[in-house]
């Protein structure tokens, strides 16, 4: 019988985590998500994770954090070091959705790439368009995206509906559209070492 593991996760990857967890039959894991809005306010992530660890981790044999550095500039790692807790390796979710090497190749290929994931396509309107006020102030679109050449959709499910939306968003931003299907494997591979190797 495996011990119970607590996974404190970014709300922006909740669906994917649940799917990966089902696929791998991880019944020993409990996910607890923090609000996805923290994505645009990374300075608030370390404190939110700390609070969660303090209030919940005591009830579990082990805790894992399903965040990358996510723009905290090492501050999240300081919190995790204090408690001896691991997180997903890498800089941000775009990296772990594509796999590090694939992501680096894409970024090298065209530095002016803006990345979408299933989550970001689903919430593009709220998080990107409204989040950066491009609906209220369309004159800001070129200020934000003037340096960008293409929109790269790093897809998890391959949903036709999401692909249609992603294409629309590329048009809206006047960027070339590029579709890369990676599925759930890269994320699953990131999590396996921490969640399956039980001492």
């Amino acid at each position, binding site marked *: 019988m495996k011990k119970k593991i607590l996974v404190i996760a970014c709300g922006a990857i909740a669906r994917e985590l649940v799917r990966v967890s089902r696929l791998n039959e991880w019944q020993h894991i409990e996910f607890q998500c923090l609000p996805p809005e923290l994505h645009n306010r*990374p*300075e608030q992530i370390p404190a939110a994770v700390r609070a969660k660890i303090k209030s919940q981790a005591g009830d579990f044999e082990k805790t894992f954090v399903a965040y990358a*550095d996510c*723009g*905290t*500039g*090492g*501050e999240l790692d300081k919190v995790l070091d204090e408690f001896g807790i691991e997180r997903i390796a890498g*800089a*941000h979710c775009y*990296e772990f959705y594509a796999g590090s090497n694939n992501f680096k190749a894409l*970024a090298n290929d065209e*530095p*002016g790439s803006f990345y979408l994931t299933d989550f970001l396509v689903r919430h593009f309107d709220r998080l990107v368009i409204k989040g*950066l*006020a491009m609906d*209220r*102030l369309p004159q*800001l679109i070129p*200020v*934000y995206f003037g*340096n*960008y050449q293409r929109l790269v959709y790093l897809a998890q499910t391959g949903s036709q509906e999401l692909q249609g939306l992603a294409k629309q968003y590329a048009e809206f931003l006047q960027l070339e559209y590029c579709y890369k299907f990676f599925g759930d494997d890269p994320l699953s591979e990131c999590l396996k070492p921490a969640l399956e190797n039980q001492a």
Partner: protein
Amino acid sequence: MTDEYKDEDIILSELPDNELVEQMHDDLYDGLADEIAEGTQILIDRGWSASRVLKEALVDGMAIIGVDFRDGVLFVPEVLMAANAMKAGMSILKPILSETGIEPVGKMVIGTVKGDIHDIGKNLVGMMMEGAGFEVIDIGINIDADTYIAAAQEHQANILGMSALLTTTMPYMKVVIDTMVERGVRDDYIVLVGGAPLNEEFGESVGADAYCRDAATAVDAAKALMAAAS
């Protein structure tokens, strides 16, 4: 000339100087570029020097915005609208300032590091440094060590500024500074670094002269370090 009417029917040209400057601070806060251009022109027509208009009406107004951005009262779009309004004022002042032939306080080359194309923070710092009397050469985004060093040498800059917003690109600042050391030019320049994920400790660890958390701090640090170096 036609007077512009605001929501509350404020006629800028009828306001006394101090109220006009206050109104311009409000208009900057609200990102109203036309009103800022108008106010700037009125003050110049009333005989204000361009540098006084710049300092009291524009730079002091942007400082208020900087504080509210830092405290989370304003977010990125509002800052961009304010910066745009300030630019409208600056475009009137710049030709006058260059005519008067005042020597710049110093020269700064600024760019975003290799692999990174975030440029809002860099642009804002560049603008505020110009506002403080520096000549700013913006070399753009995705800048490698060779380009930084070549630009600093070409323009005989006093200050080299690097911006990074990604945790994957901030370590490149160390590459640039190490290359400067290797080539024996590190001490020819004051190196300032900034960007949201950086901190004081990081600035020290890469060997920068200062980490600056915002544009106002950058101006203060640049002035202090220039004074210390001379």
